[in-house]
């Protein structure tokens, strides 16, 4: 029986050479290890073996079985590996083709600019408060120290609505709306749309965004020096640390003293070019100490409280920042323009 086993082993291993095909392998497995296979046959005849020899023969049977099995497994593994290698070679992709286009939109540049500005002011301790576009004369003009028939009203050509209402010409109404209902200390920015009677053109739009901001506290605690400090920090945060700033005296009915803020021209860095009309400076915003008459209108005593206020156009900052020169781009919504902007607002605060 030992001989029979040895012969069986030799025959099977010989058959399971390195080049054995899948069919050969399967044939050997069935012939030798299958239910009615040679090895099973040998084991069935164990009874015939003398009792004394049985353990040794049994051991040999197991050994032969393991040997053939492991040979089979190795061959099968090799076959699988070869098949995988073949299929990998065949399933090769052109990885430079585009992926499936999962739709993703973009944020409007005016949103991006507005959000960045609000983030800067929020990080400096300003609250953000939205206020109304449809406004009355009191909140848009009278409380802001524009007397009726005053030429200063002509600086802002107004759209009028039924019922004695109008479309706000600036977000400064937010100053009045907030101060009427709250007491200092206050530090608030009011973003929103404003409306003036200008045709949509390269330079102007009948609807445009503004941010109004103001800070009010006890007299002496918020001064012109603080106005300069806060707005200079804003300009550097928004336009970059290399930005030079200058304050230029100006006039707004609702501030006294009034100042406009110029930054060094972004194109020529102050050297003088066509964009800044050779001055080296570009105006970005209007500001000033809140006029005592405005404080009186909201019931604050100017001897007790004082503060500063500022207002800036969103489109203007966007044009400067993006280096484009046509206001209409923002309202045409040409995808070839809008598609250049990111899908998320940059978070500037730490």
């Amino acid at each position, binding site marked *: 029986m030992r001989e029979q086993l040895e012969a069986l082993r030799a025959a099977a291993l010989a058959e399971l050479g390195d080049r054995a095909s899948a069919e050969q392998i399967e044939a050997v497995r069935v012939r030798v290890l299958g239910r009615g296979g040679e090895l099973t046959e040998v084991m069935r005849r164990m009874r015939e073996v003398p009792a004394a020899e049985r353990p040794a023969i049994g051991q040999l049977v197991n050994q032969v079985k393991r040997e053939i099995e492991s040979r089979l497994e190795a061959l099968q593994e090799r076959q699988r590996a070869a098949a995988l290698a073949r299929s990998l070679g065949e399933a090769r992709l052109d990885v430079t083709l585009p992926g499936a286009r999962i739709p993703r939109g973009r944020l409007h540049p005016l949103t991006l600019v507005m959000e960045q500005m609000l983030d800067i002011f929020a990080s400096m*301790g300003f609250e953000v408060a939205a206020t109304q576009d449809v406004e009355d004369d009191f909140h848009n003009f009278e409380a802001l120290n524009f007397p009726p028939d005053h030429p200063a009203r002509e600086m802002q050509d107004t759209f009028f609505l039924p019922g004695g209402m109008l479309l706000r010409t600036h977000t400064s109404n937010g100053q009045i709306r907030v101060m009427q209902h709250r007491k200092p200390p206050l530090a608030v920015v009011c973003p929103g749309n404003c409306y003036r009677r200008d045709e949509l053109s390269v330079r102007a739009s009948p609807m445009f965004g503004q941010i109004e901001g103001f800070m009010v506290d006890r007299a002496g605690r918020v001064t012109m020096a603080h106005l300069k400090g806060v707005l200079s920090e804003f300009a550097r945060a928004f336009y970059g640390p290399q930005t030079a700033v200058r304050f230029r005296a100006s006039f707004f009915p609702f501030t006294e003293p009034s100042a406009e803020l110029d930054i060094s021209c972004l194109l020529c860095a102050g050297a003088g070019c066509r964009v800044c009309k050779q001055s080296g400076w570009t105006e970005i915003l209007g500001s000033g100490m809140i006029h005592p008459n405005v404080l009186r209108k909201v019931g604050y005593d100017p001897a007790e409280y004082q503060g500063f206020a500022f207002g800036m156009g969103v489109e203007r900052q966007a044009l400067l920042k993006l280096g484009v020169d046509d206001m209409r781009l923002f309202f045409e*919504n040409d995808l070839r323009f809008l598609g250049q902007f990111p899908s998320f607002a940059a978070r500037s605060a730490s």
Partner: protein
Amino acid sequence: MKLPLSWLGEFVRLEADTGELCRRLTLAGLEVESAERVAPGFSGVFVARVLKVERHPNADRLNLCDVDAGAVGRFSVVCGAPNVTPGMTAPFARLGARLIGSGHGGGQCLASLQEVPPLQAAVIRGVRSEGMLCSERELGFSEDHAGILALPDDAPLGAELASYLRADDTVLDIAITPNRGDCLSILGLAREVAALFGLKLKPPAIKSALLMPRAGQANAGNGGGALSVDILAPELCPHYAGLPISGVQIGPSPIWMRRRLELCGMRALNNVVDATNYVMLELGQPLHAFDRAHIAASRIVVRRAGQAPGGALDREFVTLDNTRRALDPADLLIADPEKPLAIAGIMGGLNSEVGAATTDLLLESAYFEPMTISRTARRLGLKSEASYRFERAIDRAGQIRALARVAELIGASAGGKVSGAAVDAEPRPAPARQVMLDLGAVNSILGVAVPGAEVRQRLRALGAKVKSAGARRLMVAPPPFRPDLNEAADFAEEIARLKGLAEIPATLPERASTPATPNDYRGFMRAAREMMVGAGLTEVKTIAFIAPADNQRYPGMGGGAVPVTNPLSAELGELRLSLAPGLLGALRFNLNRQAAAFHAFEIGKVFAMRGGAPGEHERLAAISCGDFALGAVGQPATAASFWTLKGVLEQWLIALGAAARVEFEAAGEAEHHFLHPGRAARVLFEGEPIGYLGELHPAEAVRLELTNPCVLTELDLVHLIAYGFQPRQQVTGPPRYPAVRRDLALVVERDVSAAQVIAAIREAASPLLESVEVFDVYEGGSIAPGKKSMALACRYRAKDRTLTDEEVNRTHGELVEGARRRLGAELRQ
């Protein structure tokens, strides 16, 4: 305001160069918009005297002139001008001179003087001419070519004409803010320059003695009687002064005056009107000259249009631009006892205009209240140099001085003499203004300590009178031309401006560092926008003004359209009721530029009349047209449809955490006539309609020339924003036991909605039912006509155990039977 530097130089001697002047003015609030160099239109031209004029031997219309140009020499010149006479002083162009107007057209063309060929010796009809005498056109001053320009007799012979006439000048154009009426004059600007540079101001020396009539001349002239003034509206005209002048001879003004007027942007007319304009530019006081022959009874009445004699009302008036103007009873007029003569402060009348035949004048110098001038000028749409100044408040005390100045100029240039006593009616003298200025308040506003001595010096430079009034206090009398200076903030501004804002330090305020309160509104908006972007839509912004027709097509969600009282055009005549027209406009714009698809959203305000008043509403709207999700190369794309946009909206609502409160139901047939009636949904939030979702009506698609289906949605955000503010964070761990799925298919009437089926199932369900979803809808085949089969997946789960098959089968069986009965449905096996 135009400022010729040569004119400025008469009142202040400035060493700084033009660039520095412009910079300092700009920083001090007087923004220099341009500085234009004005070069003369000629070179090689000198002041000369014509000594002798003889007829040209060979030509009747030409003369031979002997010309003395002082040190330049004596010349023989052929001249064809009819006005050349011996003894006249005139411009002489010697050989080699260049004249901008020497060709035909003439006119000033500054850049090209070097291109003009130099004047060459010419032999005219056999006589050699050694130069030429020049007309205004040849010199580029005007189109006048009727004769030689006559220069004043005191002009220095041999002087370069360019320097004599100061033809080489620089003109600044300065933007004057509405609070600085005092800077609408050369003198006012000179005062600013003097204050800024620490220089002395030299105001013009004016001989007010001129106002006194010469002996024997009192009340002479046409009309005879002494002038009188009645002011019936002293609250609108607190001061009116008039001066009679007689014996004027109307003609052109001297060339220097005309040139200055033109540099300042005004047209020269004649020697009387030009003198009034000149003084207005110089001192800031608008003046008016009436032809006295047309003033009845030598009497001026200052009154409203509604105060005509006998309680009558002047309804209209012809101004000197020959335009008939409708009057309002409140308009202030200058009249005589019979008729109006001028609209006060705005424009004179044709009936008393100074013309070629005028000999006697009444000169007016008055102070009118800014508001009345502004109101009338705006109503009439009539702005003049005078109204511009009156509106911004002129010098309250400058009337008499200006009258003397103009009398002096008219005397010199038109030969007019003061022919009677000036009338000076001031029913309401200006109250004396005294302000107690606390230096501490100035420092507190500016945030920097300004020494008291500096405050005094700066305010004095502006013309204020300043006295000490105790410790750290000053008594300030602001000058009468600065009505804008009244309290500490006003003075602080002047000090900051003159000192330079750069001198104020930039510091950060000290503030309590309390934590910021989260801004839920801003957070919601930011999330809403960025989730829309994440879902594939691009943010757009459109303008709120639209055509009434678009509001009719897209009426939004109730309320009437808000008309704009004064729109830019009829096409922009109303405020939008809906964001849809703007989005469709943007779609069309992009399709016209070869875009294959457009998927966009806008968050913005719409406007509607509510209870007679315009109101505003925050909306989100989205549009989708064309291929939405593109597959990889070779794989099919997903086209925009009701389902893609509904999916975007649903995912957006899930991300906002509001999905469970939102339902969609079929919109009524007539609810949104711009939507496909069978493909329109009403969106509900907690049962209240907040918007719509649907496919654009095919007829609208045709009108807009759209070839692909276009889907639209619009939601009012107010409820969603309010919901977003509620704290509702509730977190549970993932379930610990498995769910079991059982499907069912119900055959129902075709018009039964998925929402109805699911509602019926939920009513029939046990607490073990976790979710139920439709996964297929099937019509045709074995399904009877008019019916459909809806396949649903039910998931069952218990919190505390694994469900057994038996328990699930029993529960599901009860659910199926309950739903079947409720819906009258058949079960499809």
